[in-house]
């Protein structure tokens, strides 16, 4: 008998054939003596295997055995999660979060410092006719100096002119001595 027909008989015994094909194979086995003998032999072998199958016993209890399997499944899932590829936006988020915080803090400090420093204004002045005001800043002591002098006189860093013959040219003293 051909091998494929033997497999057909085995499949018929195991109930694995479609209904229409199983009916045809059954009719053929009933007609064919060789097929019938083969079917009987395979059937007895199946029965013997079922009756004499050795039972499997476990050293662990049922609950412990299945808890070990569950634990292994969790470990496998954890390992897959650890090694899973991190998307690019998740990698950037780790650095952008602190960076944005530092930037926000810097902005707040800049605004606070600007508000704490008083604004500077231009100095405005006017002097009587015949006199002029020379203004300069001493950076080392942050001092502003306004020197008032007669427009016709020499600059202040030079010695003043000697007293003239006409006393009325010399200004009266500001100091009460």
């Amino acid at each position, binding site marked *: 008998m051909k091998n494929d027909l033997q497999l057909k008989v085995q499949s018929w015994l195991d109930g694995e054939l479609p209904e229409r094909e199983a009916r045809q194979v059954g009719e053929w086995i009933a007609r064919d003596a060789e097929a019938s003998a083969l079917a009987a032999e395979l059937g007895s072998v199946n029965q013997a295997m079922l009756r004499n199958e050795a039972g499997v016993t476990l050293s662990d209890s049922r609950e412990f055995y299945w808890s070990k399997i569950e634990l292994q499944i969790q470990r496998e899932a954890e390992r897959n999660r650890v090694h899973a590829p991190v998307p690019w936006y998740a990698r950037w988020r780790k650095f952008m979060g602190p960076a944005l915080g530092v930037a926000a803090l810097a902005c707040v400090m800049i605004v606070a410092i600007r508000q704490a420093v*008083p*604004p*500077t*204004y231009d*100095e*405005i*002045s*006017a*002097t*009587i006719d015949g*006199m002029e*005001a020379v203004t300069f800043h*001493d950076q*080392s*002591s*942050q*001092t*502003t*100096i*306004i*020197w*008032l*002098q*007669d427009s016709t*006189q020499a600059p*202040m*860093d030079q*010695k*003043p002119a000697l007293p003239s013959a006409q006393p009325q040219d*010399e*200004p*009266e*003293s*500001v*100091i*009460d*001595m």
Partner: protein
Amino acid sequence: MNLEARLVWGTNDEQGGPNCKPVDPELAATLHRTFKWSHYFEITNQVAAIPEKQSRDLRMSQRCTLRVKNLGGSRVEINCIGQGKEVHKGAYTLTPPSWLVLGGNDTNNTAWFIGLRTGGGRAITKN
């Protein structure tokens, strides 16, 4: 605003007059660094508390009066009046503890200076 105004006399004479006192060290250092005179004496020291938008007259000497107006925000308007005439008028910023100094030539190769400064929130003691 607590304002302090000091009239200082700059001279090359070692001894000043009867009303002369030593100058504030900071102001003295600035004057020594900037001007040619070797000695500086304090003649008058005036202090005044000037509310915002108000002015006060500070009599520095018989011939010199300083009219100071508090413009607010550390800004002051200074009117230097000499013998009844407005010699100089200006608006300046006074940032403590810095000085603002007005000055000019005086008789006998001397000079006068008026140093102004604010005390911020603290009171300024008069010498």
